[in-house]
């Protein structure tokens, strides 16, 4: 049970002057229950790859297997795939359309053919999971703040109960508190329901803090695919790709250079704090 991406290529605007080779020979295996972070400079192909995983874009060549089935097979139902692989777009609040929040979240489950009652139950559950205040359930989605809209949009996908959840920069344009809330919620989702989660992000600190594995994309290729610790040990290469390591990595490197014996591969703030305390002999 997993997603396998096999020699995937995608070209935008093929046969025109402005053809863009957005994905080049992508190979991937995504086992169940993993929390994966995808980072890369703007235009590196992150969103394009994510749209392939639920069949919104069809590869120019190569293929994708979901649970052992080729999703490009003639008789494969892409609509089913989309109910298993949920995708939350960059700035998802632009897709809200119903008169009130609750009905908007019901849209997904209703499309799955669920009865009104089941759809409402799922919507309720999803809105609770994203921590959306109950007194706002029946207001218009257009009257909400940016962060609230974002939660509603994520709930709209969660209500379909996908096995794999893809979030394309879910924290873009939110304040630090909103970012932490959303990422914390995503992490707890993964812990509680064992969902596979793919998180696209520009913030190394966010990714380092939460994920099990990191994919680094560069010019349509996968440059690194490893656990955070190993990926962030390639600071120079990352900087060449216009990326950076988490802030703690830089601090630890400087401390190391200053002759203090710290573990410079720590990636989260907590790990860093403990290794620094240790170096100074404080428990």
């Amino acid at each position: 049970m997993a997603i396998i991406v096999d020699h995937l290529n995608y070209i935008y605007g093929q046969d025109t002057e402005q053809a863009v080779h957005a994905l080049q020979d992508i190979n991937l295996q995504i086992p169940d229950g993993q929390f994966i972070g995808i980072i890369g400079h703007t235009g590196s192909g992150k969103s394009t790859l994510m749209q392939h995983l639920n069949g919104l874009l069809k590869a120019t060549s190569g293929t994708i297997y979901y649970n052992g089935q080729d999703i490009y097979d003639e008789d494969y139902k892409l609509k089913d795939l989309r109910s298993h692989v949920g995708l939350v777009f960059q700035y998802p609040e632009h897709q809200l359309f119903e008169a009130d929040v609750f009905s908007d979240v019901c849209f997904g489950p209703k499309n799955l053919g669920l009865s009104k009652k089941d759809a409402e139950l799922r919507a309720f559950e999803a809105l609770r999971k994203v921590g959306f205040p109950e007194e706002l359930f029946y207001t218009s989605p257009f009257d909400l703040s940016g962060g609230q809209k974002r939660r509603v949009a994520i709930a709209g996908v969660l209500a379909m109960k996908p096995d794999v959840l893809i979030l394309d920069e879910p924290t873009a344009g939110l304040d630090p508190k909103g970012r932490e809330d959303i990422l914390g919620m995503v992490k707890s989702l993964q812990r509680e329901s064992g969902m596979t989660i793919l998180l696209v992000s520009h913030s190394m600190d966010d990714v380092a803090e939460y994920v099990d594995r990191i994919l680094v994309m560069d010019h349509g290729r996968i440059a690194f695919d490893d656990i955070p610790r190993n990926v962030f040990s390639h600071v120079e290469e990352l900087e060449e790709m216009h990326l950076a390591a988490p802030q703690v990595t830089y601090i630890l490197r400087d401390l190391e250079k200053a002759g203090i014996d710290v573990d410079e591969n720590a990636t989260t703030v907590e790990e860093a704090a403990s290794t620094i305390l240790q170096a100074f002999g404080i428990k």
Partner: protein
Amino acid sequence: MIRDITIGQYYQTDSVLHRLDPRVKLLGTLLYLVSLFCFHNPAGYAVALLFLILCIRLSHVPFGYMIKGMKGIMMILMITILFNLFLTSGTVLVSFWKITITVEGLKLAITMALRLCMLIIGASLMTLTTTPNHLTDGLEKGLRFLKVIKMPVHEIAMMMAIALRFIPILLEETDKIMKAQLARGADFESGGLVRRAKAMVPLLVPLFVSAFRRANDLAMAMEARCYRGGDGRTKMKPLIYAGRDYAAYLILLAYLVISIFLGRWSVMTELLTSL
């Protein structure tokens, strides 16, 4: 998906036609289109076709790219051909079952198809070689004389410029929202007419909301930069005729004289003999 429409789009490259003053192109296109409806014999069409081919070569726009945009009007073209072919009365050419094809019908179908193709290629040649900004600049300056009868020429040109500018943005937005709703299990393709119309709601509502939001932002941005209409407004790059523009006018005139002379030969001779 929706991005494949090329009619009315600009094609970025460098050519004489691209550099030409938009007023020349506007007037030229207008005259060319009118001329297509004045011909009465093949010679006229031959000249018009030759002129078009010359312009296409000059524009450096790949012919394949132009044709791709014509797919959308294929239906209209087919219907025109079929109607003219089967519904024109005259001397019978072939006849089978309930269908008869007449000589006149065949002639009419061919000329109409030719006319339609040249019409569309001629018009799209203008938009392919002129940026929307340039086009509206040309319109504004070319139609300035209408100000005398209190036509708000500048305002109309500005509205056109904004509308043209927004087309690609709205297409992109439609694509995005469509994908987002597909990801939520929406189905735009199956079902009867009513179901399909209903399925458009999740697409249209966000699209309108975003269009209004954009319009609002734009109005605000324009006001913040003290935009107050066309009065007393100067241009950074005013349109000034260059030598090539006068040359183009001359070529246009030559085309008109030759094509009308040839295309209406029969009418002329009649006129002359009657004198």
